Protein backbone atom coordinates (compact mmCIF):
# COMPACT_ATOMS: atom_id res chain seq x y z
CA UNK A 1 0.00 0.00 0.00
CA UNK A 2 2.67 2.41 1.07
CA UNK A 3 4.85 1.33 -1.82
CA UNK A 4 2.12 1.86 -4.41
CA UNK A 5 1.55 5.42 -3.21
CA UNK A 6 5.26 6.12 -3.22
CA UNK A 7 5.51 4.95 -6.83
CA UNK A 8 2.57 7.08 -7.78
CA UNK A 9 4.06 10.25 -6.31
CA UNK A 10 7.40 9.73 -8.01
CA UNK A 11 5.55 8.88 -11.22
CA UNK A 12 3.75 12.22 -11.10
CA UNK A 13 7.01 14.02 -10.34
CA UNK A 14 8.79 12.35 -13.24
CA UNK A 15 5.94 13.05 -15.64
CA UNK A 16 5.72 16.66 -14.47
CA UNK A 17 9.44 17.25 -14.85
CA UNK A 18 9.47 15.65 -18.30
CA UNK A 19 6.52 17.81 -19.38
CA UNK A 20 8.21 21.02 -18.19
CA UNK A 21 11.44 20.07 -19.94
CA UNK A 22 9.74 19.16 -23.21
CA UNK A 23 7.58 22.31 -23.21
CA UNK A 24 10.51 24.61 -22.50
CA UNK A 25 12.37 23.16 -25.48
CA UNK A 26 9.35 23.41 -27.77
CA UNK A 27 8.48 27.00 -26.77
CA UNK A 28 11.17 28.88 -28.75
CA UNK A 29 10.12 27.33 -32.04
CA UNK A 30 6.45 27.87 -31.20
CA UNK A 31 7.28 31.53 -30.66
CA UNK A 32 8.89 31.64 -34.12
CA UNK A 33 5.72 30.21 -35.66
CA UNK A 34 3.51 32.62 -33.69
CA UNK A 35 5.64 35.61 -34.67
CA UNK A 36 5.59 34.75 -38.35
CA UNK A 37 1.78 34.98 -38.43
CA UNK A 38 1.62 38.38 -36.73
CA UNK A 39 1.19 41.57 -38.76
CA UNK A 40 4.65 42.99 -39.51
CA UNK A 41 4.10 45.99 -37.25
CA UNK A 42 3.14 43.84 -34.24
CA UNK A 43 6.33 41.78 -34.46
CA UNK A 44 8.38 44.56 -32.89
CA UNK A 45 5.86 45.79 -30.36
CA UNK A 46 7.03 46.56 -26.83
CA UNK A 47 6.39 44.59 -24.69
CA UNK A 48 6.26 41.56 -26.97
CA UNK A 49 3.39 39.11 -26.79
CA UNK A 50 3.66 35.39 -27.35
CA UNK A 51 0.42 34.92 -29.29
CA UNK A 52 -0.62 37.07 -32.25
CA UNK A 53 -3.42 39.54 -31.49
CA UNK A 54 -4.44 39.43 -35.14
CA UNK A 55 -3.70 36.68 -37.61
CA UNK A 56 -1.86 37.85 -40.72
CA UNK A 57 0.11 36.28 -43.54
CA UNK A 58 1.62 39.62 -44.50
CA UNK A 59 5.18 38.45 -43.65
CA UNK A 60 4.86 35.36 -45.84
CA UNK A 61 3.46 37.40 -48.73
CA UNK A 62 6.35 39.81 -48.45
CA UNK A 63 9.12 37.21 -48.57
CA UNK A 64 7.46 35.18 -51.33
CA UNK A 65 6.91 38.28 -53.47
CA UNK A 66 10.57 39.27 -53.15
CA UNK A 67 12.78 38.19 -56.01
CA UNK A 68 15.55 36.72 -53.88
CA UNK A 69 14.00 34.14 -51.56
CA UNK A 70 12.09 31.94 -54.04
CA UNK A 71 15.18 31.77 -56.23
CA UNK A 72 17.31 30.90 -53.21
CA UNK A 73 14.96 28.05 -52.34
CA UNK A 74 15.35 26.65 -55.86
CA UNK A 75 19.15 26.90 -55.49
CA UNK A 76 19.09 25.21 -52.10
CA UNK A 77 16.89 22.41 -53.35
CA UNK A 78 18.99 21.82 -56.49
CA UNK A 79 22.25 21.77 -54.56
CA UNK A 80 20.84 19.49 -51.84
CA UNK A 81 19.38 16.97 -54.30
CA UNK A 82 22.58 16.80 -56.39
CA UNK A 83 24.75 16.56 -53.27
CA UNK A 84 22.62 13.70 -51.97
CA UNK A 85 22.78 11.83 -55.28
CA UNK A 86 26.55 12.23 -55.66
CA UNK A 87 27.30 11.38 -52.03
CA UNK A 88 25.17 8.23 -52.05
CA UNK A 89 26.57 7.10 -55.40
CA UNK A 90 30.11 7.06 -54.02
CA UNK A 91 29.48 6.29 -50.33
CA UNK A 92 27.08 3.33 -50.55
CA UNK A 93 29.43 1.00 -52.53
CA UNK A 94 32.42 2.09 -50.45
CA UNK A 95 30.62 1.50 -47.14
CA UNK A 96 29.50 -1.90 -48.41
CA UNK A 97 32.99 -3.21 -49.13
CA UNK A 98 34.39 -1.46 -46.06
CA UNK A 99 32.13 -3.50 -43.81
CA UNK A 100 31.63 -6.75 -45.77
CA UNK A 101 35.13 -7.15 -47.21
CA UNK A 102 37.06 -5.84 -44.27
CA UNK A 103 40.79 -5.56 -44.77
CA UNK A 104 43.54 -3.15 -43.92
CA UNK A 105 42.79 -0.64 -46.69
CA UNK A 106 39.07 -0.47 -45.90
CA UNK A 107 39.71 0.03 -42.18
CA UNK A 108 42.14 2.83 -42.98
CA UNK A 109 39.59 4.32 -45.34
CA UNK A 110 36.82 4.36 -42.73
CA UNK A 111 39.25 5.85 -40.24
CA UNK A 112 40.06 8.57 -42.77
CA UNK A 113 36.33 9.25 -43.17
CA UNK A 114 35.95 9.52 -39.40
CA UNK A 115 38.89 11.90 -39.18
CA UNK A 116 37.44 13.96 -42.04
CA UNK A 117 34.34 14.59 -39.93
CA UNK A 118 36.55 16.44 -37.45
CA UNK A 119 37.97 18.85 -40.05
CA UNK A 120 36.59 22.33 -39.33
CA UNK A 121 34.72 23.60 -42.41
CA UNK A 122 36.54 26.91 -42.20
CA UNK A 123 39.90 25.11 -42.62
CA UNK A 124 38.58 23.35 -45.72
CA UNK A 125 36.68 26.40 -46.95
CA UNK A 126 39.81 28.50 -47.47
CA UNK A 127 41.53 26.08 -49.93
CA UNK A 128 38.20 24.99 -51.49
CA UNK A 129 37.69 28.62 -52.44
CA UNK A 130 40.97 28.54 -54.40
CA UNK A 131 40.28 25.11 -55.89
CA UNK A 132 36.87 26.17 -57.21
CA UNK A 133 38.27 29.48 -58.39
CA UNK A 134 40.93 27.72 -60.46
CA UNK A 135 38.28 25.40 -61.91
CA UNK A 136 36.02 28.35 -62.71
CA UNK A 137 33.33 26.92 -60.41
CA UNK A 138 32.97 29.77 -57.93
CA UNK A 139 29.34 30.88 -57.57
CA UNK A 140 28.03 27.90 -59.58
CA UNK A 141 25.75 25.02 -58.60
CA UNK A 142 28.36 22.30 -59.38
CA UNK A 143 30.93 24.17 -57.28
CA UNK A 144 28.71 24.33 -54.22
CA UNK A 145 27.63 20.70 -54.76
CA UNK A 146 31.30 19.64 -54.64
CA UNK A 147 31.88 21.61 -51.45
CA UNK A 148 28.80 20.14 -49.77
CA UNK A 149 29.80 16.66 -50.96
CA UNK A 150 33.07 16.97 -49.05
CA UNK A 151 31.00 17.17 -45.87
CA UNK A 152 28.24 14.76 -46.89
CA UNK A 153 30.36 11.80 -48.05
CA UNK A 154 32.02 11.11 -44.67
CA UNK A 155 28.62 11.31 -42.95
CA UNK A 156 27.03 8.98 -45.52
CA UNK A 157 29.96 6.56 -45.21
CA UNK A 158 29.66 6.31 -41.45
CA UNK A 159 25.86 5.97 -41.48
CA UNK A 160 25.86 3.39 -44.28
CA UNK A 161 28.65 1.40 -42.59
CA UNK A 162 26.51 1.18 -39.48
CA UNK A 163 23.56 -0.08 -41.55
CA UNK A 164 25.69 -2.59 -43.49
CA UNK A 165 27.16 -3.95 -40.25
CA UNK A 166 23.67 -5.11 -39.34
CA UNK A 167 23.25 -6.94 -42.65
CA UNK A 168 23.81 -10.72 -42.62
CA UNK A 169 26.77 -11.80 -44.69
CA UNK A 170 24.86 -14.90 -45.91
CA UNK A 171 22.76 -12.64 -48.12
CA UNK A 172 25.56 -12.05 -50.57
CA UNK A 173 26.85 -15.62 -50.27
CA UNK A 174 23.45 -17.01 -51.26
CA UNK A 175 23.29 -14.72 -54.29
CA UNK A 176 26.81 -15.78 -55.30
CA UNK A 177 25.79 -19.42 -54.95
CA UNK A 178 22.97 -18.74 -57.41
CA UNK A 179 25.53 -17.60 -59.96
CA UNK A 180 25.53 -13.82 -59.46
CA UNK A 181 28.80 -11.93 -59.81
CA UNK A 182 29.82 -9.73 -56.85
CA UNK A 183 28.48 -6.65 -58.65
CA UNK A 184 25.17 -8.36 -59.45
CA UNK A 185 24.81 -9.56 -55.87
CA UNK A 186 25.36 -5.99 -54.65
CA UNK A 187 23.00 -4.42 -57.17
CA UNK A 188 20.17 -6.94 -57.25
CA UNK A 189 20.19 -8.42 -53.74
CA UNK A 190 21.98 -6.12 -51.29
CA UNK A 191 20.72 -2.70 -52.44
CA UNK A 192 17.00 -3.61 -52.40
CA UNK A 193 17.36 -4.99 -48.86
CA UNK A 194 19.08 -1.79 -47.70
CA UNK A 195 16.54 0.75 -49.02
CA UNK A 196 15.54 1.74 -45.46
CA UNK A 197 19.08 2.56 -44.46
CA UNK A 198 19.76 4.28 -47.76
CA UNK A 199 16.65 6.44 -47.34
CA UNK A 200 17.71 7.55 -43.85
CA UNK A 201 21.23 8.30 -45.12
CA UNK A 202 19.79 10.22 -48.07
CA UNK A 203 17.70 12.33 -45.71
CA UNK A 204 20.71 13.12 -43.55
CA UNK A 205 22.91 14.10 -46.49
CA UNK A 206 20.06 16.21 -47.85
CA UNK A 207 19.70 18.00 -44.51
CA UNK A 208 23.49 18.50 -44.28
CA UNK A 209 23.44 20.35 -47.58
CA UNK A 210 20.13 22.14 -46.94
CA UNK A 211 21.42 23.51 -43.61
CA UNK A 212 24.95 24.33 -44.71
CA UNK A 213 25.96 27.96 -44.30
CA UNK A 214 29.70 28.64 -44.28
CA UNK A 215 30.59 27.14 -47.69
CA UNK A 216 27.62 28.87 -49.26
CA UNK A 217 28.78 32.15 -47.70
CA UNK A 218 32.34 31.71 -48.97
CA UNK A 219 31.71 30.15 -52.37
CA UNK A 220 28.61 31.87 -53.78
CA UNK A 221 27.71 35.45 -54.49
CA UNK A 222 24.75 36.50 -56.62
CA UNK A 223 23.89 33.62 -58.94
CA UNK A 224 23.71 30.64 -56.57
CA UNK A 225 22.94 32.11 -53.16
CA UNK A 226 21.16 29.50 -51.05
CA UNK A 227 18.23 30.07 -48.69
CA UNK A 228 20.22 30.40 -45.42
CA UNK A 229 22.40 33.11 -46.98
CA UNK A 230 19.39 35.12 -48.11
CA UNK A 231 17.70 34.70 -44.73
CA UNK A 232 20.88 35.86 -43.00
CA UNK A 233 20.92 38.91 -45.24
CA UNK A 234 17.59 40.09 -43.85
CA UNK A 235 19.79 40.99 -40.90
CA UNK A 236 21.67 43.70 -42.69
CA UNK A 237 19.96 44.54 -45.97
CA UNK A 238 16.53 45.12 -44.51
CA UNK A 239 17.69 46.43 -41.16
CA UNK A 240 15.65 44.75 -38.49
CA UNK A 241 13.00 43.11 -40.65
CA UNK A 242 12.09 40.59 -37.97
CA UNK A 243 8.67 39.83 -39.42
CA UNK A 244 10.00 38.88 -42.87
CA UNK A 245 12.89 37.04 -41.28
CA UNK A 246 10.66 34.85 -39.12
CA UNK A 247 8.42 34.03 -42.09
CA UNK A 248 11.44 33.10 -44.23
CA UNK A 249 12.87 31.03 -41.37
CA UNK A 250 9.58 29.14 -41.02
CA UNK A 251 9.39 28.44 -44.76
CA UNK A 252 12.98 27.25 -44.69
CA UNK A 253 12.78 25.00 -41.61
CA UNK A 254 9.20 23.70 -41.43
CA UNK A 255 9.29 21.30 -44.44
CA UNK A 256 12.36 19.53 -43.07
CA UNK A 257 10.79 19.30 -39.61
CA UNK A 258 7.56 17.84 -41.00
CA UNK A 259 9.38 15.23 -43.12
CA UNK A 260 11.68 14.23 -40.27
CA UNK A 261 8.82 13.96 -37.79
CA UNK A 262 6.95 11.76 -40.26
CA UNK A 263 9.96 9.43 -40.51
CA UNK A 264 10.96 9.89 -36.89
CA UNK A 265 11.23 6.27 -35.89
CA UNK A 266 13.69 5.30 -38.60
CA UNK A 267 15.66 8.51 -38.21
CA UNK A 268 16.21 8.38 -34.49
CA UNK A 269 17.40 4.80 -34.98
CA UNK A 270 19.79 5.87 -37.73
CA UNK A 271 21.05 8.86 -35.83
CA UNK A 272 21.83 7.15 -32.55
CA UNK A 273 23.23 4.20 -34.44
CA UNK A 274 25.56 6.42 -36.41
CA UNK A 275 26.63 8.34 -33.35
CA UNK A 276 27.26 5.37 -31.08
CA UNK A 277 28.92 3.20 -33.66
CA UNK A 278 30.48 5.90 -35.80
Amino acid at each position, binding site marked *: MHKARHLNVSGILINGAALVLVLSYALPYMYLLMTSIKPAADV*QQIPPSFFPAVLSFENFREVLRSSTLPKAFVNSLTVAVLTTALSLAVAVPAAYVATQYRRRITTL*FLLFALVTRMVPSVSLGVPLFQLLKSLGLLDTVPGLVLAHTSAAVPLALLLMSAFFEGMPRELEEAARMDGCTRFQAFRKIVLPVMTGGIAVTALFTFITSWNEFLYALLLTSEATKTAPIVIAEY*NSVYGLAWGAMTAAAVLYSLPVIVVTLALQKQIVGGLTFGAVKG
Partner: protein
Amino acid sequence: MSGEDRFVLCMLAPAVAILGLLVAYPVGLLIFDSFFKVDTITPNIREWVGLQNYVDALTSKRVAESALRTVQYSVFALFFEFTFGFCAALLFSAMAGESRWHRTIFALPLMVPPIVAGLLWRFLLVGNIGILNYGLVRLGLIDDPNEIAWLSSEDIVIYSVSFADIWLTTSFVALVSYAGLTNIPKDLLEAARIDGANALKRFWHVTLPLMRPVIAVVVIVRGVDAAKTFDLIWIQTQGGPRHASEVFSMNIYQRMVRFGDLGEASASGALFLIVMMLLAALAYWKIWRPVHA
Protein backbone atom coordinates in the same frame (compact mmCIF):
# COMPACT_ATOMS: atom_id res chain seq x y z
CA MET B 1 45.34 -9.38 -57.57
CA SER B 2 42.36 -11.61 -56.89
CA GLY B 3 38.90 -10.90 -58.26
CA GLU B 4 37.79 -10.07 -54.76
CA ASP B 5 40.51 -7.45 -54.36
CA ARG B 6 39.57 -5.92 -57.70
CA PHE B 7 35.95 -5.75 -56.63
CA VAL B 8 36.89 -4.02 -53.35
CA LEU B 9 39.03 -1.47 -55.17
CA CYS B 10 36.35 -0.73 -57.80
CA MET B 11 33.74 -0.13 -55.12
CA LEU B 12 36.09 1.99 -53.04
CA ALA B 13 37.66 4.04 -55.83
CA PRO B 14 34.94 6.68 -56.42
CA ALA B 15 34.74 7.54 -52.73
CA VAL B 16 38.52 7.67 -52.46
CA ALA B 17 38.67 9.94 -55.53
CA ILE B 18 36.01 12.29 -54.15
CA LEU B 19 37.57 12.52 -50.69
CA GLY B 20 40.99 12.88 -52.28
CA LEU B 21 39.92 15.77 -54.49
CA LEU B 22 37.66 17.51 -51.96
CA VAL B 23 39.39 16.84 -48.64
CA ALA B 24 42.97 15.57 -48.97
CA TYR B 25 43.99 17.93 -51.79
CA PRO B 26 42.49 21.05 -50.15
CA VAL B 27 44.19 20.14 -46.87
CA GLY B 28 47.49 19.88 -48.77
CA LEU B 29 46.80 23.23 -50.39
CA LEU B 30 45.98 24.73 -46.99
CA ILE B 31 49.32 23.62 -45.57
CA PHE B 32 51.18 24.74 -48.73
CA ASP B 33 49.61 28.20 -48.64
CA SER B 34 50.37 28.59 -44.97
CA PHE B 35 54.06 29.07 -45.85
CA PHE B 36 53.38 31.95 -48.22
CA LYS B 37 52.32 35.52 -48.00
CA VAL B 38 49.26 35.49 -50.25
CA ASP B 39 47.04 38.49 -50.71
CA THR B 40 43.68 37.98 -52.37
CA ILE B 41 42.84 41.68 -52.54
CA THR B 42 45.89 42.73 -54.55
CA PRO B 43 46.44 39.56 -56.57
CA ASN B 44 49.70 37.97 -57.72
CA ILE B 45 51.46 38.49 -54.45
CA ARG B 46 52.85 35.12 -53.47
CA GLU B 47 55.98 35.20 -51.45
CA TRP B 48 57.63 32.40 -49.46
CA VAL B 49 57.72 33.41 -45.79
CA GLY B 50 58.46 30.08 -44.11
CA LEU B 51 56.90 29.81 -40.68
CA GLN B 52 56.20 33.52 -40.38
CA ASN B 53 52.43 33.06 -40.71
CA TYR B 54 52.48 30.57 -37.85
CA VAL B 55 54.58 32.88 -35.71
CA ASP B 56 52.18 35.74 -36.45
CA ALA B 57 49.14 33.61 -35.65
CA LEU B 58 50.59 32.23 -32.41
CA THR B 59 51.69 35.65 -31.16
CA SER B 60 48.58 37.59 -32.19
CA LYS B 61 46.50 38.75 -29.25
CA ARG B 62 43.31 38.62 -31.26
CA VAL B 63 43.96 35.01 -32.31
CA ALA B 64 44.76 33.97 -28.74
CA GLU B 65 41.59 35.68 -27.49
CA SER B 66 39.44 33.99 -30.13
CA ALA B 67 40.97 30.61 -29.23
CA LEU B 68 40.20 31.17 -25.56
CA ARG B 69 36.62 32.16 -26.46
CA THR B 70 36.23 28.97 -28.47
CA VAL B 71 37.13 26.99 -25.35
CA GLN B 72 34.80 29.08 -23.16
CA TYR B 73 31.96 28.64 -25.64
CA SER B 74 32.51 24.90 -26.12
CA VAL B 75 32.86 24.06 -22.43
CA PHE B 76 29.84 26.16 -21.44
CA ALA B 77 27.64 24.78 -24.24
CA LEU B 78 28.78 21.19 -23.71
CA PHE B 79 28.23 21.32 -19.95
CA PHE B 80 24.60 22.42 -20.24
CA GLU B 81 23.80 20.30 -23.28
CA PHE B 82 25.11 17.29 -21.48
CA THR B 83 23.45 18.03 -18.14
CA PHE B 84 20.04 18.79 -19.66
CA GLY B 85 20.26 16.02 -22.25
CA PHE B 86 21.32 13.34 -19.79
CA CYS B 87 18.63 14.36 -17.28
CA ALA B 88 16.04 14.26 -20.07
CA ALA B 89 17.21 10.77 -21.05
CA LEU B 90 16.96 9.60 -17.42
CA LEU B 91 13.43 11.04 -17.16
CA PHE B 92 12.36 9.43 -20.43
CA SER B 93 13.75 6.05 -19.46
CA ALA B 94 12.08 6.29 -16.03
CA MET B 95 8.79 6.85 -17.87
CA ALA B 96 9.43 3.72 -19.95
CA GLY B 97 6.76 3.31 -22.63
CA GLU B 98 4.99 6.58 -21.85
CA SER B 99 7.77 8.81 -23.15
CA ARG B 100 7.18 8.40 -26.90
CA TRP B 101 5.46 11.72 -27.46
CA HIS B 102 7.82 13.52 -25.13
CA ARG B 103 10.78 12.24 -27.11
CA THR B 104 9.15 13.20 -30.41
CA ILE B 105 8.55 16.79 -29.34
CA PHE B 106 11.90 17.00 -27.59
CA ALA B 107 13.64 15.97 -30.83
CA LEU B 108 12.18 19.00 -32.63
CA PRO B 109 15.17 21.36 -32.28
CA LEU B 110 17.37 18.62 -33.80
CA MET B 111 15.79 19.30 -37.19
CA VAL B 112 15.99 23.08 -37.01
CA PRO B 113 18.70 24.50 -39.31
CA PRO B 114 21.47 26.18 -37.27
CA ILE B 115 20.89 29.47 -39.04
CA VAL B 116 17.24 29.46 -37.94
CA ALA B 117 18.19 28.53 -34.39
CA GLY B 118 20.64 31.42 -34.33
CA LEU B 119 18.11 33.91 -35.69
CA LEU B 120 15.45 32.66 -33.32
CA TRP B 121 17.66 33.04 -30.27
CA ARG B 122 18.81 36.42 -31.42
CA PHE B 123 15.15 37.38 -31.60
CA LEU B 124 14.56 35.99 -28.10
CA LEU B 125 17.56 37.80 -26.59
CA VAL B 126 17.75 41.03 -28.58
CA GLY B 127 17.40 44.36 -26.74
CA ASN B 128 13.93 46.00 -26.35
CA ILE B 129 11.86 43.26 -28.01
CA GLY B 130 13.59 40.09 -26.77
CA ILE B 131 10.83 38.15 -25.06
CA LEU B 132 13.16 36.21 -22.73
CA ASN B 133 13.80 39.21 -20.48
CA TYR B 134 10.06 40.00 -20.30
CA GLY B 135 9.58 36.38 -19.23
CA LEU B 136 12.23 36.79 -16.53
CA VAL B 137 10.48 39.95 -15.30
CA ARG B 138 7.19 38.03 -15.16
CA LEU B 139 8.89 35.31 -13.10
CA GLY B 140 10.27 37.99 -10.76
CA LEU B 141 13.89 37.14 -11.52
CA ILE B 142 14.80 40.60 -12.79
CA ASP B 143 13.11 44.00 -12.33
CA ASP B 144 13.55 45.60 -15.71
CA PRO B 145 13.50 43.95 -19.15
CA ASN B 146 16.59 45.93 -20.13
CA GLU B 147 18.55 44.74 -17.11
CA ILE B 148 20.46 42.02 -18.97
CA ALA B 149 21.94 42.98 -22.35
CA TRP B 150 22.54 39.41 -23.49
CA LEU B 151 24.01 40.11 -26.91
CA SER B 152 25.47 43.58 -26.46
CA SER B 153 27.42 43.15 -23.23
CA GLU B 154 31.02 42.17 -23.95
CA ASP B 155 31.30 40.29 -20.67
CA ILE B 156 28.53 37.76 -21.24
CA VAL B 157 27.96 37.64 -25.00
CA ILE B 158 30.15 34.55 -25.57
CA TYR B 159 27.89 32.65 -23.16
CA SER B 160 24.64 34.16 -24.45
CA VAL B 161 25.35 33.03 -28.02
CA SER B 162 25.71 29.45 -26.77
CA PHE B 163 22.05 29.29 -25.66
CA ALA B 164 21.10 28.56 -29.26
CA ASP B 165 23.67 25.77 -29.38
CA ILE B 166 22.37 24.29 -26.13
CA TRP B 167 18.77 24.45 -27.34
CA LEU B 168 19.68 22.95 -30.69
CA THR B 169 21.69 19.96 -29.53
CA THR B 170 20.39 18.92 -26.11
CA SER B 171 18.03 16.56 -27.88
CA PHE B 172 20.93 14.85 -29.64
CA VAL B 173 22.54 14.16 -26.26
CA ALA B 174 19.17 13.03 -24.89
CA LEU B 175 18.40 10.63 -27.75
CA VAL B 176 21.85 9.05 -27.78
CA SER B 177 21.87 8.74 -23.98
CA TYR B 178 18.36 7.32 -24.02
CA ALA B 179 19.44 4.66 -26.54
CA GLY B 180 22.36 3.85 -24.24
CA LEU B 181 20.14 3.68 -21.15
CA THR B 182 17.66 1.30 -22.78
CA ASN B 183 20.58 -1.05 -23.56
CA ILE B 184 21.45 -1.47 -19.88
CA PRO B 185 20.26 -4.97 -18.84
CA LYS B 186 17.31 -4.68 -16.48
CA ASP B 187 18.41 -7.65 -14.39
CA LEU B 188 21.63 -5.87 -13.45
CA LEU B 189 19.69 -2.99 -11.93
CA GLU B 190 17.27 -5.43 -10.37
CA ALA B 191 20.14 -7.41 -8.81
CA ALA B 192 21.59 -4.22 -7.36
CA ARG B 193 18.17 -3.32 -5.95
CA ILE B 194 17.82 -6.72 -4.28
CA ASP B 195 21.29 -6.26 -2.80
CA GLY B 196 19.90 -3.17 -1.10
CA ALA B 197 21.34 -0.41 -3.28
CA ASN B 198 19.11 2.69 -3.33
CA ALA B 199 18.31 4.60 -6.53
CA LEU B 200 21.28 6.93 -6.15
CA LYS B 201 23.71 4.07 -5.56
CA ARG B 202 22.27 2.10 -8.49
CA PHE B 203 22.79 5.12 -10.70
CA TRP B 204 26.33 5.71 -9.48
CA HIS B 205 27.60 2.12 -9.43
CA VAL B 206 25.62 0.47 -12.25
CA THR B 207 24.16 2.98 -14.73
CA LEU B 208 27.01 5.46 -14.90
CA PRO B 209 29.87 2.95 -15.46
CA LEU B 210 27.86 1.18 -18.17
CA MET B 211 27.08 4.50 -19.85
CA ARG B 212 30.74 5.50 -19.97
CA PRO B 213 31.30 4.70 -23.68
CA VAL B 214 28.11 6.53 -24.69
CA ILE B 215 29.05 9.52 -22.57
CA ALA B 216 32.52 9.55 -24.13
CA VAL B 217 31.06 9.54 -27.67
CA VAL B 218 28.63 12.33 -26.89
CA VAL B 219 31.24 14.51 -25.23
CA ILE B 220 33.77 14.12 -28.06
CA VAL B 221 31.29 14.44 -30.97
CA ARG B 222 29.58 17.45 -29.43
CA GLY B 223 32.82 18.98 -28.14
CA VAL B 224 34.39 18.94 -31.60
CA ASP B 225 31.20 20.30 -33.17
CA ALA B 226 30.97 23.12 -30.63
CA ALA B 227 34.62 24.06 -31.22
CA LYS B 228 33.94 24.29 -34.98
CA THR B 229 30.83 26.47 -34.61
CA PHE B 230 30.56 29.33 -37.06
CA ASP B 231 27.03 29.89 -38.39
CA LEU B 232 25.21 29.88 -35.08
CA ILE B 233 27.33 32.69 -33.65
CA TRP B 234 27.77 34.55 -36.92
CA ILE B 235 24.04 34.99 -37.37
CA GLN B 236 23.58 36.25 -33.82
CA THR B 237 26.41 38.75 -33.47
CA GLN B 238 28.85 38.47 -36.42
CA GLY B 239 31.48 38.17 -33.70
CA GLY B 240 30.60 41.44 -31.99
CA PRO B 241 30.35 43.57 -29.99
CA ARG B 242 34.02 44.52 -30.53
CA HIS B 243 35.10 40.91 -31.25
CA ALA B 244 33.71 39.79 -27.88
CA SER B 245 32.03 36.77 -29.48
CA GLU B 246 34.62 36.12 -32.20
CA VAL B 247 35.53 32.42 -31.98
CA PHE B 248 38.48 30.83 -33.75
CA SER B 249 36.63 29.77 -36.93
CA MET B 250 35.27 33.29 -37.28
CA ASN B 251 38.71 34.79 -36.81
CA ILE B 252 39.99 32.67 -39.72
CA TYR B 253 37.02 33.69 -41.87
CA GLN B 254 37.56 37.36 -41.10
CA ARG B 255 41.23 37.26 -42.02
CA MET B 256 40.43 35.43 -45.23
CA VAL B 257 37.46 37.47 -46.42
CA ARG B 258 37.80 40.88 -44.81
CA PHE B 259 41.59 41.23 -44.84
CA GLY B 260 42.27 38.93 -47.81
CA ASP B 261 45.21 37.44 -45.95
CA LEU B 262 45.09 33.92 -47.35
CA GLY B 263 48.48 32.89 -45.99
CA GLU B 264 47.73 33.75 -42.39
CA ALA B 265 44.20 32.37 -42.64
CA SER B 266 45.73 29.12 -43.95
CA ALA B 267 48.21 28.94 -41.09
CA SER B 268 45.42 29.39 -38.53
CA GLY B 269 43.28 26.92 -40.44
CA ALA B 270 46.10 24.38 -40.33
CA LEU B 271 46.59 24.90 -36.59
CA PHE B 272 42.84 24.50 -36.04
CA LEU B 273 42.95 21.31 -38.11
CA ILE B 274 45.82 19.88 -36.05
CA VAL B 275 44.01 20.50 -32.76
CA MET B 276 40.85 18.85 -34.12
CA MET B 277 42.92 15.90 -35.39
CA LEU B 278 44.34 15.42 -31.92
CA LEU B 279 40.79 15.32 -30.58
CA ALA B 280 39.90 12.86 -33.36
CA ALA B 281 42.85 10.67 -32.37
CA LEU B 282 41.57 10.74 -28.82
CA ALA B 283 38.17 9.67 -30.10
CA TYR B 284 39.77 6.85 -32.05
CA TRP B 285 41.76 5.47 -29.13
CA LYS B 286 38.97 5.84 -26.62
CA ILE B 287 35.96 4.77 -28.66
CA TRP B 288 36.44 3.36 -32.12
CA ARG B 289 39.03 0.75 -31.19
CA PRO B 290 37.33 -0.92 -28.23
CA VAL B 291 34.21 -1.41 -30.36
CA HIS B 292 36.09 -3.21 -33.12
CA ALA B 293 38.66 -5.01 -30.99
